[in-house]
């Protein structure tokens, strides 16, 4: 976020404690990252629920974390107000 000129202090963390939380928030697993309410990645096959989220890195590898480039792109799109995601 700092690289994008944003303040990391503005990150809001929400803890999903029970299945109802996940359903209400349409939570596709941990971590789910939203920028201005928009998920930084398509949920693909991830189900809604209290679980770990499967991400695909840009080279195709499976990861428990998103590709940093996807996070950067999401931040950039939000800053620019673009709608290309």
């Amino acid at each position, binding site marked *: 976020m700092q690289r994008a000129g944003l303040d990391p202090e503005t990150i809001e963390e929400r803890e999903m404690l029970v*299945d109802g939380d996940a359903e209400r928030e349409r939570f596709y697993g941990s971590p789910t990252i939203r920028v201005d309410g928009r998920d930084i990645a398509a949920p693909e096959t991830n*189900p809604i*629920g209290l*679980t*770990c*989220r*499967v*991400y695909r*890195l840009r080279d195709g*590898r*499976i*990861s*428990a*974390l998103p590709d940093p480039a996807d996070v950067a792109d999401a931040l950039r799109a939000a800053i620019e107000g673009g709608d290309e995601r």
Partner: protein
Amino acid sequence: MSEIGAPAPALELRDTGGELRALPEPESAPATVVVWTCNHCPYALAWHGRIVDAARDYGDRGVRFLAVNSNDSDRYPADSPEAMRERVERENWPFPYLWDETQEAARAWGARVTPHLFVLDRDRRLAYEGAPDADHRDPSQNAAWLRAALDAVLAGSEPEPPSTEPVGCSVKWKS
């Protein structure tokens, strides 16, 4: 789970073909790997190929591999026995995939996450437990910790280190 050097708990579970698999087995293997895993966890999925490669590489040396899924399939349908069977067939697994429906095996062994590996020696004593290697996102790690543990056991020595911190998704316990 038992401490390093202690006998591993018995295991008796059915695989995706309905066959009963047990530890101790009638014919002892020079080393046995029991890995707790599942179908939906990114860590388990990322490391799976490396564990399969190790199973194939060490298979001709008599090393036995067993995979166990203990997750609550009511809350996590991706881990149902049907999904397990589909995956084994689709991916042509080289080792049995066992369903721990009651979760008793996971409790007895102390499985905490997926994947969580346990390497046993010829006498079925725990020689190594932990992660396959240092980074689920780096295929070049090639399950180095697992392979080093197996090399040590097959050479009649003790793995160093004998344990690492398993990294992955928590076992999904029934409420």
